[in-house]
């Protein structure tokens, strides 16, 4: 791979042919790498758990008998394969049903904020002028209050507002707040990259050849600007899953008796030294496995999509 450093970088000439080859090439590269396949399988597994938790456990995570508290893992086939927590709730059931709030929240937040951030960043960096002024000011105003602090402020503000129950409603408030304060990072990086790229020759060339603004933005500027951002996305998802744990730790996340991985980690962190490490290790293990898969996939994606690194 070190010879990629000395290889002549390919210049994208005709946009149509180049992009089709790019995507096709990307797909070919992706599905040949073994680590990518493993990561994709793990991720698919967890998404499957999110969709059909009932297939993995017959116990109800919210039916907790205090007489059955703190049972150690009994292995598959027993009543409590992964044991129970301090309240007597089945750990496997909690893992299965708790995947939903955590993963769904992360996917929704990162997806939406990426979209908003990329679009606004492109517009600001490309058009400059008053568009840039407005967007940059908005970025600043939102940036001045940090993400977690904004989450604390807003979620504490709306603490007495109930939106009903059910998984989607449980995560609606945190999702809104985290998205509102999560897009600025992407926008700023994209804007900076666009500013760097807009003066480069191939952009000028594309414009001279008559390409429309949208085409130039998405076909020429974006693929080169996206590199630092794709490096961020998997860690952002991990960050949101972690942020959900922090919100649970601070008491402004999902409320009992509803369960999430964040709550399990937050409660389990205390008991790891009390002699019950399984209460922390199981949810943390799931979280790390998910994050790892996402990161591997993200890296592979970035490597495959970057035209200069092929």
């Amino acid at each position, binding site marked *: 791979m070190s010879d990629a450093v000395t290889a002549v970088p390919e210049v994208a000439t005709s946009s149509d042919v180049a992009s089709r080859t790019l995507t096709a090439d990307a797909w070919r590269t992706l599905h040949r790498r073994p680590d990518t396949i493993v990561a994709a399988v793990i991720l698919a597994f967890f998404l499957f758990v999110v969709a059909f938790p009932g297939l993995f456990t017959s116990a109800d995570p919210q039916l907790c008998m205090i007489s059955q508290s703190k049972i150690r893992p009994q292995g598959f086939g027993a009543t409590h394969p992964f044991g129970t927590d301090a309240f007597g709730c089945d750990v496997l059931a909690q893992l299965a049903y708790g995947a939903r709030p955590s993963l769904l929240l992360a996917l929704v937040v990162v997806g939406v904020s990426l979209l908003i951030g990329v679009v606004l960043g492109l517009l600001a960096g490309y058009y400059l002028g008053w568009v840039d002024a407005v967007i940059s000011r908005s970025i600043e105003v939102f940036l001045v209050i940090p993400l977690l602090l904004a989450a604390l402020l807003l979620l504490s503000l709306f603490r007495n507002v109930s939106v009903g129950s059910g998984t989607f409603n449980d995560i609606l408030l945190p999702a809104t707040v985290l998205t509102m304060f999560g897009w600025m990072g992407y926008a700023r990086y994209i804007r900076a990259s666009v500013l760097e790229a807009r003066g480069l020759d191939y952009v000028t060339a594309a414009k001279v050849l008559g390409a429309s603004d949208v085409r130039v933005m998405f076909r020429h500027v974006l693929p080169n600007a996206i590199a630092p951002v794709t490096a*961020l996305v998997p860690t952002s998802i991990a960050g949101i899953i972690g942020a959900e744990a922090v919100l649970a730790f601070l008491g402004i996340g999902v409320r009992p008796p509803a369960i999430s991985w964040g709550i399990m980690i937050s409660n389990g962190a205390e008991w790891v030294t009390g002699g019950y490490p399984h209460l922390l290790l199981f949810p943390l293990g799931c979280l790390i496995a998910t994050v790892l898969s996402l990161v591997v996939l993200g890296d592979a994606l970035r490597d495959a999509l970057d035209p200069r690194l092929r």
Partner: protein
Amino acid sequence: MGRYIARRCLQAVLTLFLVVFALHLLTTLAIQLNGNPALAFFGDRVPSATQLAAVEQRYGLADPCFDQPGNPCLGPFVDRVVAYAQGDFGTNLRGRDVTDIVVAAAPNTLRLFCIVTITWLVVGMTLGSVAARWRGKAVDHSVRLTSVLIDAFPVFVLLVVYRYVFSVPLSNWAEDRFGQGSLPALWFRPSFDDAHPWATVLVPGVLLGLAGSAAFVRLVRASQLECYSGEHVRTARAKGLPEHHVITHHVVRNSSVPVVTAVGLTFADALGGAVITEGLMNIYGMGGVLWQAVRASDVSLVVGVVTILSIVTVVVMIVVDIAYAALDPRIRYE
């Protein structure tokens, strides 16, 4: 360049005003929705109407607009802005000056941030450069793996495990080995000690920094990789310059733009992590103060502290923008 700075400063003032207004609206709405914080004063007792009125007066919440949900309370807002312009940032519910609280709490948070930033830079630059230099090899993969693993750990897990499992044995060992009150014993003290602020903030800062360093590592790696494939690096190598010269003078410097951006951004971001760290390690800092104030609906304290924080953040952002423009001539546009 001068015009650029002047323009940025004017924009900053506007931003600040908008932030204070937004905060005021939010906190006023919070009181109107969540109930009067004066009621919490009485705890388990039931106050009479007169007693409640007296406490509201004492808290500065006597204005009837606080009882009407949706009322923007412009009167108190104007009073507050006028006071801020004169340097009076108000008092908390108990009558303690906000500036006093900030003066007492801010240094601890700044110390924490200092350690965190140093940790980020050290870990990020070293590991990121190493990973970029030997891209594709085992080192690269293991660095990436480690950074992801660390990133996946929520910071409170690191802190709780450190505090309950490691700090007591380490602290006792250090006391036996180096004596009570010695520097290593202070480093491993389970809680913050105001009498030795730098020594006892070191470990929490490093842990908090580690927890957030993965993004830095990846960022440094990604931007350096871009540089490696650039023309200027090929030229430098063709000229026969030694590899480490190429790395330090051509790769690192040119890949620093996103890193500088990140430093500016993370200053604001780190405050969130500071809330957790300060709470768990008992550091009297801005994060903890703000968190308690939000929960107690202490309007003056919340708005005052966030305003002061905003001023600092905006100043930092201006500095970052100027550094930006100084580092990369292509970015200076007028």
